């Protein structure tokens, strides 16, 4: 494997795919699917041989294929594969344009993961962010505009970071940044800029405003955006903190109980994001907005792990990013299947679809178990690692925020389950059919790893360990079925055996008697005959909680941004007065300019 094959397979191939699939009309997603499958196969085949190469397209692009890249590529490749598989049967309008832009985004993502110098990182980062912009533009221009503003903000934060490094080292390579020429205060600026830059893509609290809007576009794309592309933010922060800067520099800012003073505020920010994201998610009635805020919350957890920096915390962050990629895109695909079948977005308008779409319900249920961290899925293990990391180091602000946020996760999880799948089935949904086969296949692919890695966590912990040792950090200790931290451990094998046995006991008691099935109208309704609308209690679901928290919910970051930008726009109108419009002023400007130039020239002499 040399430079060209690596560059060819992961960058050129999807680009060619993008061009080809534009003309594929209705079959475009299938074409795109083939290209993604090819890259997937190569990803699997090339697991062993890693290496770094440079490609010259006028500017030198340094690409490295190592375990970290492989780990993140595995996530993104699977997520886009299932999104496109979902899109095959989702009959999107102008499917050609959709698959082109998806593949462009995929190329950008691959490029960011492969690149080991700032030029190619920035190049592919921008390519990925504008292809997402155009994808959102397909649904609504206003949402796309807000996304692009934050996308560009994140790009310019990264540019500032790169610039400062370039000022000191004069080269774009990651390795050169470690050459010790950069003073430690400059590192503070660099890391703050880079983390904020990548943090925008992970929707950390002050920079999260674009997420609920961006997540209201087409479901297959959104599942790739939230499942796959938000992992680039994680990759970016992970690389900039631990591979570009390295633990030595982080600790040079002084450590607070083994955690660098630079990392701790970001961990705190992550915890606040987790808490606020979850609380906001509880009160949303639109399924897409709810999933958007829940995604912000879950990524807050990842941010905590990245901020803390101990090997357990980082392992937890990587594992949680992995889980989030799967259960979040599974949730979005599930919601997409429901929206595809009923055409409704509001949770209170749906109801009882679980009886009509049983498989979709089971997949979404499994994703909810992953999201809420129930031990039946691997979602628990990653959350466990993050909690243990925080408690190990006795952080009394981060740990409670995370724990309470996870309880909040139960609330909005049940709101999704009850609002859409349980409760009374409305008249117009009586004849709703199950989601088409490709959609179910897509969801199945995403569900598999959550189950497998919950039974045998050893495999994925092995990969995560390789990633940690690859970036020079201490590995976490684990065996095939158990994982440990300094203050506790858990064995998933005994858990599963015990659960199976006790479940068998419950089933034994249960099947003693048969039960007669009753239709949904044969319900205790104080003797009256219930109508289908009355059966569904999902309208305004957590109203008492909302009323108690009303004073706190008044403040919204969106309105702060609006006021902030209005202040600047008024300034622009002031400046506009310079161009008065009559030529005499313009001629006067010329004279004044000449005088100023002369004085400056004189003074410089």
């Amino acid at each position: 494997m040399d430079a060209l094959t690596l560059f060819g397979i992961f960058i050129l191939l999807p680009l060619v795919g993008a061009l080809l699939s534009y003309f594929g009309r209705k079959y475009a997603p299938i074409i795109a699917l083939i290209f993604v499958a090819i890259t997937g196969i190569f990803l699997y085949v090339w697991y062993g041989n890693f290496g770094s190469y440079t490609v010259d397209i006028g500017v030198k692009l340094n690409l490295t294929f190592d375990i970290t890249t492989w780990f993140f590529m595995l996530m993104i490749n699977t997520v886009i594969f299932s999104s496109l598989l979902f899109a095959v049967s989702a009959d999107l309008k102008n499917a050609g344009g959709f698959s082109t832009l998806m593949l462009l985004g995929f190329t950008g993502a691959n490029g960011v993961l492969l690149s080991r110098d700032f030029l190619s990182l920035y190049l592919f980062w921008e390519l990925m962010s504008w292809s997402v912009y155009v994808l959102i533009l397909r649904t609504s221009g206003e949402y796309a505009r807000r996304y692009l503003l934050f996308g560009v903000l994140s790009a310019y934060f990264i540019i500032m970071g790169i610039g400062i490094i370039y000022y000191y080292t004069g080269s774009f390579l990651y390795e050169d940044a470690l050459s010790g020429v950069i003073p430690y205060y400059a590192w503070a600026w660099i890391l703050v800029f880079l983390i904020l830059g990548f943090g925008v893509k992970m929707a950390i609290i002050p920079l999260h405003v674009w997420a609920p809007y961006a997540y209201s576009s087409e479901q297959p794309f959104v599942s790739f955006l939230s499942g796959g592309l938000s992992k680039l933010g994680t990759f970016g922060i992970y690389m900039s903190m631990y591979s570009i800067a390295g633990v030595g520099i982080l600790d040079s800012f002084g450590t607070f109980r083994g955690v660098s003073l630079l990392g701790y505020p970001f961990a705190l920010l992550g915890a606040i994001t987790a808490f606020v994201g979850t609380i906001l998610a509880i009160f949303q009635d639109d399924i897409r907005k709810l999933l958007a805020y829940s995604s912000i919350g879950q990524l807050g957890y990842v941010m905590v792990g990245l901020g803390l920096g101990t090997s357990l915390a980082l392992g937890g962050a990587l594992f949680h990013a992995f889980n989030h990629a799967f259960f979040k895109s599974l949730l979005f695909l599930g919601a997409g299947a429901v929206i595809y079948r009923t055409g409704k977005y509001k949770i209170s308008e749906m109801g009882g679809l679980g009886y009509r779409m049983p498989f979709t319900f089971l997949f979404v249920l499994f994703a909810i178990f992953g999201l809420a961290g129930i031990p039946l899925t691997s979602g628990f293990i990653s959350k466990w690692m993050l909690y243990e990391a925080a408690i190990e180091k006795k952080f009394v602000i981060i740990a409670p925020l995370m724990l309470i946020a996870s309880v909040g996760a139960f609330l909005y999880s049940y709101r999704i389950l009850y609002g859409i799948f349980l409760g009374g089935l409305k008249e117009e949904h009586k004849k709703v059919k199950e989601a088409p086969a490709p959609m179910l296949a897509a969801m199945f692919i995403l569900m598999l790893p959550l189950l497998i890695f919950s039974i045998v966590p050893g495999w994925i912990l092995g990969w995560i360990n390789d990633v940690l040792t690859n970036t020079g950090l201490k590995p976490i200790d684990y065996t095939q079925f158990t994982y440990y931290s300094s203050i506790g451990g858990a064995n998933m094998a005994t858990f599963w055996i015990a659960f199976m046995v006790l479940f068998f006991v419950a089933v034994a008691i249960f099947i003693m008697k048969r039960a007669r099935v009753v239709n949904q109208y044969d319900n205790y309704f104080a003797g009256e005959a219930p109508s289908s609308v009355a059966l569904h209690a999902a309208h305004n679901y957590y109203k008492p909680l909302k009323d108690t928290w009303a004073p706190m919910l008044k403040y919204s970051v969106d309105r702060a941004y609006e006021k902030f930008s209005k202040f600047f726009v008024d300034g622009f109108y002031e400046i506009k007065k310079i161009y008065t419009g009559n030529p005499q002023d313009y001629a006067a400007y010329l004279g004044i300019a000449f005088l100023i130039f002369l004085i400056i020239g004189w003074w410089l002499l």
Partner: protein
Amino acid sequence: MNENPLPSVIPDKEWKKIQRMLSKRSLWMIHFCTGCGAMEMPPVMTSRYDMERFGIIPMATPRQADLMLVTGYVATKTLKRIVRVYEQMQDPKYVIAFGSCPINGGIYWDSYNIIKRLDKYIPVDLYIAGCMPRPEAVMDAFLKLMKDIDEGKANGWMRYRKYYDQYKRNQMRIFKRWDE
């Protein structure tokens, strides 16, 4: 009709005996306070007579209840609700009718919308006479019912299942629409 849960382990006869003993000792009551009988229930439930010592506790939904109390006159409108609640209860289920109104219409013998005899529409296991029987009568009725259950005489739910079509015919003569 009632399958036997543990056929092999315990012989059928003994199992039925245990079943009857269990349902006797824990009668869960849903209280359909149609008329003036509701006033008699508080003394029965509270410290003076305390029906809970026989395992009888008030329940909120027919699904969880075995015993239904119809306390007072039954108008045609109320009958429809009583039949629905009765059908939502799970076998074995028993009905006790309070006072003279369910027996023969009581003081409303001449009214145009009070049904004169309850067990024409749903099987009643026990009537308690009296224009609102005193709590002692109610307690006595409970004990009588428990004895009937024990001896297997209180089989109203079997009769409802057996003569279901007759009951339905009678009911539909009183009210025309059922599902509204």
